[in-house]
């Protein structure tokens, strides 16, 4: 297989990953690393670096649209980025010391947890009652546009959410994924903000979180242009197509199908990790 053929196949794979990730809301990054390591036999460090790049591309592209619609809670995002960036740097350092097999097993486990979490019903947002002192001091309570006009919401358990975000940041830096599922859980179930706000705010933070660990990956030579080029362009193209199709396609059954694919890939990653064949 020549570089040209390899690049074209990678591009198509990344396009499909980006499309499915965007349609199902599970993110394209989660299948990229198994695709690169299991199918193309790429070293996992290169795969993580490549995935981080594609995560920045898709999250920034999508965030541009959400931010303009006024759904994203930028203050909440900025505040929680303190936790995610610090975590991401810790995670990236950890990745350089952990053996490949351990990273593969961890990746498989996180993949399974993320897929399962994405099916959890989000807790109802809190709209009434008195705001907590900390959320008021940080001006986190806000409103977002809905079909029935602007809706107010309150942010609960700021400290708990901050802690969860720190863990999400570590995982992002360690495994090169956006860990969007964990971020949404932190905001939905811990901080109790509306689902639409938590998904867009989580997406808003992913780019900065990944940028924090990319520096470390870059210095260690984990970011390869030959791999990143087809993957970044493919994922971005797929995500763009997905955002155009989102209103028309039925996504419930697609989501279950994609989650099954993820489970299979996760099992394969864990199996290969245990057998040290990755």
């Amino acid at each position, binding site marked *: *297989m*020549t*570089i*040209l053929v*390899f*690049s074209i196949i990678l591009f198509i794979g990344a396009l499909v990953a980006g499309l499915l990730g965007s349609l199902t809301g599970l993110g394209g990054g989660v299948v990229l690393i198994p695709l690169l390591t299991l199918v*193309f*036999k*790429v*070293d996992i*460090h*290169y795969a993580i670096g490549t995935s981080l*790049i594609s995560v*920045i*591309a898709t999250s*920034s*592209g999508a*965030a*541009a649209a959400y*931010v*303009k619609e*006024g759904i994203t809670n*930028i*203050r909440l995002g*900025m*505040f929680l*980025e*303190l936790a995610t*960036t610090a975590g991401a*740097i810790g995670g*990236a350092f950890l990745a350089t010391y952990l053996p490949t097999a351990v990273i593969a097993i961890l990746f498989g486990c996180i993949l399974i947890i993320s897929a399962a979490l994405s099916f959890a019903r989000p807790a109802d947002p809190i709209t009434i009652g008195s705001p907590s002192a900390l959320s008021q*001091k*940080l*001006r986190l309570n*806000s*409103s977002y546009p809905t079909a029935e006009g*602007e809706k107010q919401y309150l942010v609960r358990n700021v400290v708990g959410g901050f802690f969860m975000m720190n863990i999400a940041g570590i995982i992002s830096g360690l495994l090169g994924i956006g860990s969007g599922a964990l971020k949404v859980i932190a905001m939905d179930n811990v901080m109790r903000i509306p689902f639409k706000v938590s998904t867009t705010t989580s997406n808003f933070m992913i*780019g*900065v979180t*990944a*940028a*924090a660990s*990319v*520096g*470390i990956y*870059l*210095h*260690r*030579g*984990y*970011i*390869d*242009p*030959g*791999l*990143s*080029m087809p993957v*970044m*362009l493919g994922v*971005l193209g797929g995500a763009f197509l997905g955002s155009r199709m989102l209103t028309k396609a039925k996504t419930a059954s697609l989501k279950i199908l994609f989650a099954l694919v993820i489970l299979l890939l996760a099992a394969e990653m864990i199996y290969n990790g245990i057998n040290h064949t990755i």
Partner: protein
Amino acid sequence: MGTMKKSPGEIQDADLEKVIGNLLRYGVLTSSLVVFAGGLVYLIRHGGELPQYHEFRGEPDKMKKPTLMWEAICRGEGRPLIQLGLLILVATPIARVIFSFVGYLLEKDYLYAVLTVIVLLVILLNF
């Protein structure tokens, strides 16, 4: 933000949202174009060779140091041009943090200006 004072001519969260949205959009667009151009050059020059990614070997200095990268781009190499595009991509969310900092200063929201600077330092000190 319903709790904010609103007077004409003053910088508000909505203005910041618009600027940040545009910044992200054009950052991703620019980097994609540069990566695409670099990709074309790379495939024309090396498309017939065999890929070697099975073992991790790291990257040469011209993929890491901006001055060496630029020299290689001027020699017409594709891979450093792709890498430049990737750097533009990574710079996009970082530029977003810098814009937010300026925005919060103009809004006179000093608490958030400080929080933003801390995030910026965490990122830049590790780069």
